[in-house]
């Protein structure tokens, strides 16, 4: 049926799009008087050239996997959850409260509790928008935008006035007890004898993110609930016919989505900062939208897109460290990558398709020659 082999669709198109984006970025870099080739080298070697680079890349990717999955799950039910930012922030609060106020003897006990706390708080923050959508049809896009702002206010209040240690300038909680500190990738991998940089913030949460991808994949494509979520997303009228309750599906999906966004906190709050700081989410909720859409709302796609964004973040940081390229340019590069790989991919696909068709025509079933006119 398809004009193009699958590998072209999955690998070739994103690759060419990526090259186009980098080419354009190169022009911008050239315009500000830096060497684009060197910049690319720095980005690649800085993000992927050492376990240290990978450590950062994977750390960012972990954040994006969670927020990306959150958006992707909601998208399967055609719900557009832009509230990842707020949900992840509340998830951070859940992690902080659990780590600060429950005396854990060991991280193995703290981790499941923290995951639960993060997920519950995140889910709670998605619950009200979900409820309003399910019951009253209030558009989830507006309510989640509003809840991002409300969440920021609540966190600001709690961090400045309630949770901040009295002498600290920083609107952040106290440091979590050492027993709650998660092992880094260095700690984990050295057990199996793989040397890994000690300095990088990537931690065991990365594996939990991978696990989350698998669980979500199973959930969406191999469970009754996932089946119902997808069916509802494809056609609400058909879902009603099949006895799938729209209210239930909207609620459950939003809870799962919020929970996933909240779980990002185990990586950045528990794994990296080891305390809850203000604005800990740092826009990962919004990047999650791009990650989910680029990943075509599929866990594997989300995983790959998250790695790409992790690469861009870490590569960008290396660029800042090694050159005088301003951070704004890195934002521009990220924007171009999103634009070309996510929205302008058809620009690449269309000519590629006709190329494949051209090569395939002769070998395909011979058809009656068209009347030459």
């Amino acid at each position, binding site marked *: 049926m398809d004009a193009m082999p699958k590998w072209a669709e999955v690998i070739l198109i994103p690759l060419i799009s990526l090259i186009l984006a980098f080419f354009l970025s190169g022009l911008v870099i050239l315009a500000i008087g830096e060497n684009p080739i060197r910049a690319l080298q720095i980005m690649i070697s800085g993000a992927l050239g050492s376990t240290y680079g990978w450590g950062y890349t994977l750390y960012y990717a972990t954040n994006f996997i969670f927020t990306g999955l959150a958006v992707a799950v909601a998208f399967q039910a055609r719900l557009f959850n832009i509230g990842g930012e707020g949900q992840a922030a509340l998830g951070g609060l859940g992690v902080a409260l659990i780590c600060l106020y429950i005396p854990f003897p060991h991280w193995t006990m703290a981790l499941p509790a923290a995951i639960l706390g993060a997920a519950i708080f995140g889910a709670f923050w998605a619950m009200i928008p979900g409820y309003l959508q399910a019951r009253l049809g209030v558009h989830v896009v507006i309510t989640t935008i509003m809840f991002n702002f409300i969440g920021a206010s609540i966190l600001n209040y709690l961090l400045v006035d309630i949770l901040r240690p009295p002498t600290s*300038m*920083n609107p952040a909680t106290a440091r979590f007890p050492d027993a709650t500190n998660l092992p880094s990738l260095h700690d984990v991998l050295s057990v199996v004898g793989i040397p890994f940089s000690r300095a990088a913030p990537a931690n065991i949460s990365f594996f939990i993110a991978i696990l989350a991808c698998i669980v979500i994949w199973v959930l969406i494509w191999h469970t009754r609930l996932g089946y119902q979520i997808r069916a509802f997303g494809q056609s609400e009228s058909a879902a009603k016919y099949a006895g799938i309750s729209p209210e239930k599906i909207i609620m459950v999906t939003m809870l799962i989505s919020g929970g996933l966004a909240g779980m990002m906190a185990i990586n950045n709050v528990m794994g990296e900062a080891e305390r809850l700081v*203000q604005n800990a989410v740092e826009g990962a909720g919004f990047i999650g939208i791009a990650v989910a859409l680029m990943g075509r709302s599929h866990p594997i796609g989300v995983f790959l897109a998250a790695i790409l964004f992790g690469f861009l973040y870490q590569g960008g940081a290396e660029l800042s460290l090694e050159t005088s390229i301003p951070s704004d340019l890195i934002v521009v590069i990220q924007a171009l990558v999103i634009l070309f790989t996510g929205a302008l991919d058809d620009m690449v696909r269309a000519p590629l398709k006709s190329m494949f068709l051209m090569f395939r025509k002769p070998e395909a079933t011979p058809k009656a020659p068209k009347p030459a006119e």
Partner: protein
Amino acid sequence: AEPAIIFDLGGKFDKSFNEAAFGGATRWAEETGNTFREIELQSEAQREQALRRFAEGGSNPIVMTGFAFADALTEVADDYPDTSFVLIDMVVDKPNVRSVVFNEHEGSYLVGMMAAKASESGTVGFIGGMDIPLIRKFACGYVQGVKAANPDAKVIQNMTGTTPAAWNDPVKGSELTKAQISQGADVVYAAAGGTGVGVLQTAADENILSIGVDSNQNHLHPGKVLTSMVKRVDNAVYAAFTEGPGLEKGFQVMGLNNDGVGYAVDDNNATLVTADMTAAVEEAKAKIVSGEITVHDYMSDNSCPVN
């Protein structure tokens, strides 16, 4: 060795103290003809990353702007005993760290007095960026100054927002100013980064006085900015760069006594600052330096005696 500076998340163009720090660094570079390394952070995780990278790359000293670095520095400092670190706005007690803190409340106290004296309505305003302890420290010092000059004066306080956008929302700053004006304020003090641009602009448009912050902002609207509460982050950076790797470590308080904070008078606002004002403010300054007056520091007990 090349010195390095790490700017906090707001970026070096934050119209606030990152920008002041950047100013100090460039001044040093221009005067000495040397170069320095710099990075603008984009995420929390980069704090430690940047510190380690610069330290491993041989940069010395390494200056960082902002209280948020305290944690990362505490972890990193011991690993690089031969590198000097300078932390601005927060204290880290390590042998190779210089901590520079500013008595913003003292400077704010002085401009508060000036605001009260310049005000005809007896109502003055304060506009902060995000509601964080540092800004409350500014506000508390300011209110004390206002009340010292005019016990009956009223201070209207506003914060801009709860997300990082609060530091960059001149339009909201402008509206807050208008709201304060409509409540009678005729002098407004902005401690709000980029948002302050809008505050000063609107004050000038509406013909009331404003007070700038961090760097000398008198020139932005000559004759309309009463004064600026200068916080000489630039000097701190300049000094650190000049002293080089062997800089003196320990705890440095930049206050009125060593001109670390103060109020700015120049050609742009000379006509606004009356002799009476100067006299009163200079007297208070002397008393603060001598210890006769203590300005309450919000951070000491997380509360402000007046508001």
